[in-house]
């Protein structure tokens, strides 16, 4: 009788680790970097375009071509 009791206790002790289950949930990292890079490029392009057209206007004013409407002479290139 004592023998069966020991076996039952041993079996119960062995079964304890089986109750302990663990689950690993792998979450993929959210990639934000490319979005920032794209935005950064768009902002740089916007700035480059603004600088370019502002420079055209500035140079036109400097060279005194503002108000002077000489006709366009021929095709370029």
């Amino acid at each position, binding site marked *: 009788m004592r023998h069966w009791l020991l076996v039952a206790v041993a079996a119960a002790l062995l079964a304890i680790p089986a109750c302990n289950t663990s689950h690993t949930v792998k979450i993929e990292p959210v990639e934000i970097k490319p979005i920032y890079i794209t935005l950064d490029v768009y902002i740089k392009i*916007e700035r480059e375009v603004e600088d370019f057209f502002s420079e055209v206007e500035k140079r036109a004013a400097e060279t005194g071509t503002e108000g002077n409407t000489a006709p366009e002479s021929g095709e370029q290139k």
Partner: protein
Amino acid sequence: MNGSRSRALLKAVLCAAVLGAMAAAACADTRDEIIDRMAKRLPQLKKYKTEGKIGETFNGLVEAVKSEYGKDKTLRKLVANENADRKAFYALTAEKFETTPEIVARSAGIRNFKAAEPEHWLKLKDGTWVQKKNLEEVRKREDEKEQKG
């Protein structure tokens, strides 16, 4: 014999590469040259814009507001030269930022729409011409249409 042949071939290839690079450098417009030409053209372009004959397009170019205005040779040349320079700048900028000229052109279109005077004409993406002063009204109407539809 084989060695001298391959050396000669290598020399020829190198010469061609150097000449090609020199020719490309000579032909390519610099940003500064483009600005210079556009600055000289600006007063006349502004005059036509104020007269309502030339307008800005959504994709950063200029165009005759009505096809009949295109009969004016001076206007036609002005539009062609201005667009050639703008396209050259968009290509240069696209190369610099490793993007497409179309993206740069759209950015320029937005910039030029913002900078336009109230009486200037603007060509929208759907091809319609709108005066800057009426742009907000047109957009509101379009938004209302979209919401109803």
